[in-house]
């Protein structure tokens, strides 16, 4: 606020025409270190309670902003991003380590080295050391993909 505006507010204050909210505004403005001597008298008249109330309202308003402000906002964003990263890592770990339920799906190694002309016997004998129990459905699938 410019000095001229403060001067006008002070005049209104002396005329008894300011609201409590405007007086809080004046109290905050008069906290500057380099104010004229006359303004110091006004600051004294407004008192600590007005200033304290003004600061209280300012802090509460700042806290009620979404994610606060400045450093506080940075901290909150950091914690949100950290939480999201942790959830993703746990999800990835579980995805890689838990067994899948779908037994109808043919594992990739059953079909990985199939080539034209491979028979069911080639496939079975080549891979039976990896999986002893192949279902009829899985053999059918392999044959179908090999045609």
């Amino acid at each position, binding site marked *: 606020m410019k000095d001229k505006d403060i001067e006008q507010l002070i005049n209104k*204050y*002396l*005329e*008894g*025409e300011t*609201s*409590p909210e405007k*007086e809080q505004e004046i109290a*905050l403005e008069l*906290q*500057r*270190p380099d104010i004229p*001597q*006359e303004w*110091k*008298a*006004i600051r*004294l*008249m*407004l*008192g*600590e*309670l*007005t200033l*304290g*109330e003004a*600061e*209280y*309202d*300012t*802090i*509460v308003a700042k*806290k009620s902003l979404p994610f606060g402000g400045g450093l506080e906002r940075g901290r909150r964003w950091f914690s949100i991003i950290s939480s999201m990263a942790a959830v993703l890592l746990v999800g990835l770990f579980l995805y890689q380590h838990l067994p899948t339920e779908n037994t109808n799906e043919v594992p990739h190694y059953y079909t990985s080295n199939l080539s034209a002309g491979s028979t069911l016997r080639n496939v079975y004998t080549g891979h039976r050391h990896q999986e002893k129990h192949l279902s009829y459905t899985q053999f059918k699938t392999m044959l179908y993909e090999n045609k």
Partner: protein
Amino acid sequence: MTRSEFEHIAAQLRQKVLKVGLQFFGSPEDAEDAAQETMVQLWRYCEQIDASRNIEPLAVRVAKNCCVSMYRRNRPAPIPSLYGGELGSSPQEIMEANDTQRMLEEALDLLKPRERQLFEMRQLEGLSVDEISTETGIPKPSITAMVSAARKKVFTELKRRMK
């Protein structure tokens, strides 16, 4: 207000100031501390408070000040005023603060009782002209005129003393 009168309303008042702390801190523990400090302050000065008046607005303002003081104390660095200057806490600064407070008290002593009452209702309790009019029954224009006269008197006296 006597100490026993204050004790009579203390429980109800405490609930009110607790809400102020809770709104500010969000944590019940800090709000309790602020409420406790507020009640101690009010207890200390209760004999200077007019018993016929509603003490709640003053209690709320004191509670807000206690919250801000606690907030400052709990910050790691010396924080203070919103304009970057630190609040005075050295013996010399405390002495200066006491001097200016005494100067203000002496300036207020020059006011007529009615002027002083209205001045304090505005400055201490932070009541609006409408609220003062409701409480005292004095018409609003008269309140504005008396508050203005009181402020100008105090201002003139303070300026004279500060030279």
